[in-house]
């Protein structure tokens, strides 16, 4: 039976004109495309669980912090006109911000390592790399440097508070990571303020 019907189909196909075949192919195309899209054709996928959204938000915030420090480091770059022209406080401020920047990069790496994205998921958007030639020029004078460090300290305190506020509902190990990063960011506040004082 099966062989017979298959043979009949072949026959039918053989009898169709070229025009009819092309028309049928065009009509079937959207169906094939829909089939390839899979679940998206049936509806939007469910939103990620709350803890995943919290982690994604923390990753975005840490990415913003890393970018903020990259920008600040350009502003704090000691004067380049002479190797001896930069004063100690300029170098100290730049070194302090650089050390804290490195810790934020480490925070970001740990946070990203905890996010398991399903295969085929759209990768998270990362901020574009900052080219050394772009961006603002170094700040001049103590007041400009203090302003940059002061803004960083305010951002650090806010980030620390936000992480502690987000602990509810997180798995234990992720809550510990959030708390540790929040603690680290709080230490940056004092550290930056001390750098601003030219310690």
């Amino acid at each position: 039976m099966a062989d017979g019907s298959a043979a009949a189909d072949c026959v039918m196909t053989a009898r169709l004109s070229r025009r009819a075949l092309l028309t049928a192919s065009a009509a079937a195309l959207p169906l094939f495309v829909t089939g390839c899209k899979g679940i998206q054709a049936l509806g939007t996928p469910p939103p990620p669980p709350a803890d995943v959204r919290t982690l994604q938000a923390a990753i975005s915030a840490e990415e913003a912090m890393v970018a903020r420090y990259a920008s600040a480091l350009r502003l704090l770059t000691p004067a380049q006109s002479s190797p001896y022209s930069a004063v100690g406080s300029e170098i100290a401020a730049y070194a302090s911000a650089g050390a804290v920047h490195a810790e934020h990069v480490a925070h970001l790496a740990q946070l990203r390592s905890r996010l398991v994205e399903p295969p085929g998921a759209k990768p998270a958007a990362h901020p574009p790399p900052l080219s050394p030639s772009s961006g603002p020029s170094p700040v001049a004078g103590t007041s400009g440097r203090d302003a940059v460090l002061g803004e960083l300290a305010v951002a650090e305190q806010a980030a620390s508070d936000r992480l502690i506020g987000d602990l509810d509902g997180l798995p234990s190990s992720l809550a510990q990571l959030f708390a540790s990063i929040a603690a680290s960011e709080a230490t940056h506040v004092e550290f930056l303020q001390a750098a601003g004082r030219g310690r």
Partner: protein
Amino acid sequence: MTSASGQAGQATGSQQTITALQNALAAEQAASYGYGVVGARLPQGSAAQGTAGADWVTHMRARDELTAMISARGGQPAPAAVAYQLPGPVKTAADATALAALLEDRVAQAYLEIVALPESGLRNFGARQVRAAAVRAAAWRGSTQAFPGLPASSLRS
């Protein structure tokens, strides 16, 4: 009404809470003892000695708070040891400063156990104590750490 398994779960959770609080209490008791040594080795009347005195009071208050929290949950707070083994000789101001930073690191690590508990209030309390200990440790050390209180083994490469 709760099922037998539910009661067992509550008991386990409660025991986990008591254990985490006891570990934090032990760290605070050790810190209270250790700051006595720290203060004795710092220059008399110096700002650093003043800071050590303030931190010592902070740890004694935290010790009392944890004692009350354990009692309120039906636990028996463990008493402090008569004396503690120091990690090394503390003969100079630099030794004392290093000891203070180490005490704070251990306190931060102990409070992270409380952060791992599911209870919202305790988790928040633990996180704020980790933060306070990390800030004190950074002040003593003169530098910051990326992951205060977290053992390196818990970090992913």
